[in-house]
């Protein structure tokens, strides 16, 4: 119990004193997972919408694939992204393994199916006639899609939160493709693993507390947008 208390005190200390290394790690976590979530929103919402609103053969199969992807294990993603990005691998010429960009790619791959699956369900849940009604009122196609997105605002923001939550907390892929390099690719989760290995449990707990505070702050903000003015 003392250990946890020590950790929390340490976390407060690190936060109040604005420890430069911890601040750097926290900002990098935020930047990397934020960018990955942002990328996943484009890919996830557009594809989710396309699959939800169209009919094509094998559609159920595609939906099952997307839903399976929501549980994509981060270590598996990390392994395959590493192999692809190796110096001597197919994308070795990019020379981005062990850089923050590599973590963004891996995390975007993890977050995209999550966002896609939830937005797919969100758009499918909208009343079927809504589209016809909007079009009948003279909206262009683009306007119609915009209105549908607004209608599905609640679940779509839930998709953002789930996507972000999935990547900010993941460690397997980040450590494999980022390498946990000090001052460069060390994020909150990989630093926590390393400090645990070093036996610095107080620092590890402090980093966990910071991670949870960060996740709470982001989700509180998104929830505020989500719940601000309840439709209807």
């Amino acid at each position, binding site marked *: 119990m003392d250990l946890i208390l020590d950790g929390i005190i340490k976390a407060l200390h690190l936060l109040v004193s604005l420890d430069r290394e911890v601040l750097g790690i926290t900002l990098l976590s935020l930047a990397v997972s934020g960018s990955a979530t*942002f990328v996943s929103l484009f890919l996830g919402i557009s594809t989710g919408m396309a699959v939800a609103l169209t009919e094509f053969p094998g559609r159920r199969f595609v939906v099952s694939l997307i839903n399976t992807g929501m549980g994509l294990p981060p270590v598996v993603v990390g392994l395959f992204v590493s192999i692809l990005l190796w110096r001597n691998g197919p994308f070795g010429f990019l020379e981005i393994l062990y850089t923050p960009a590599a973590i963004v790619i891996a995390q975007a791959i993890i977050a995209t199916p999550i966002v896609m699956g939830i937005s797919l369900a969100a758009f499918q849940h909208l009343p079927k006639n809504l589209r016809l009604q909007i079009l009948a009122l003279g909206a262009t196609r683009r306007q119609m899609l915009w209105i549908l997105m607004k209608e599905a605002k609640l679940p779509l923001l839930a998709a953002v939160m789930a996507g972000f939550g999935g990547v900010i907390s993941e460690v397997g892929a980040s450590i494999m493709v980022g390498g946990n390099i000090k001052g460069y690719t060390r994020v909150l989760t990989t630093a926590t693993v390393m400090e645990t*290995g070093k*036996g610095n449990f107080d620092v590890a707990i402090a980093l966990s507390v910071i991670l949870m505070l960060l996740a709470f702050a982001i989700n509180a903000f998104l929830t505020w947008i989500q719940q601000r003015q309840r439709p209807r």
Partner: protein
Amino acid sequence: MQIKKTHRLTLCALIMALVLLPGMTTALHAAPKQQNIILATTTSTQDSGLLDVLLPLFEKKTGYFVKTIAVGSGQAMTMGKKGEADVLLVHSPAAEKTFIAEGNGINRRLVMHNDFIIVGPPGDPAGIKATRSSTAAFQKIAQAQALFISRGDNSGTHAKEKAIWKAAGINPETQKWFQQTGLGMGQTLNVAAEKKGYTLADRGTYLALKKNLGLDILNAGDALLLNIYSVIQVHPTKFKKINAEGAQAFSDFMVAPETQKIIGSFRVDKFGSPLFFPDAGKSEDALGK
């Protein structure tokens, strides 16, 4: 209402920018090409904090940026075999010699040594404290069928452990009292502590974790328990894209007299004795005597 809406949009854009910008800038400001050295190393050099002391000095001196990938010695050499690392800092002498013999690396140089220790619960259920050698201790553990926690991850420590089992004439792999974690040294020590088992550890990691463990050193000092760290440059012409100059510079740095002095005095203030003994230029056979 309209004004409010624009405000809201600006706010959103601002937050997006705040979130995204640092990521973009760090990605763009990646150190320039050929200035990067990938160092594949064993976890103990990182977990002991030694690299945190040495690398900033090296980077300041040479202008290279070292990307340290801390894995087991076995995995570090696999990375070298594939040309995915430029230089290795490892502690698995037999495997290192094979690595060089197979033409994967050059210029293996001794950097430092410390020793492995056999740790276990203070009660010592197998009674290994009275034994002289590491092999006798392992035999006692097997006889008593006392729980032994193995790394099981092809690391340098795991290779050493297997060598001791072999020397003791025991094949523990199928035994019930023998469990493999597949984890790093720190985590394996924690598992051993929780389950009150024995394990083989490097002294550095054990000392760093000691305060929370409740495990005692029960056997040490045997010549077989010597733990030797070497620096190896990955073969510069076997693979494209190897930063051969950077690897050479790092290897030279590790054996330079100033660096060796720092290694010898590392953490002496904290533990009262050195964690690593500098060995540059010595012959391997002369160590531990």
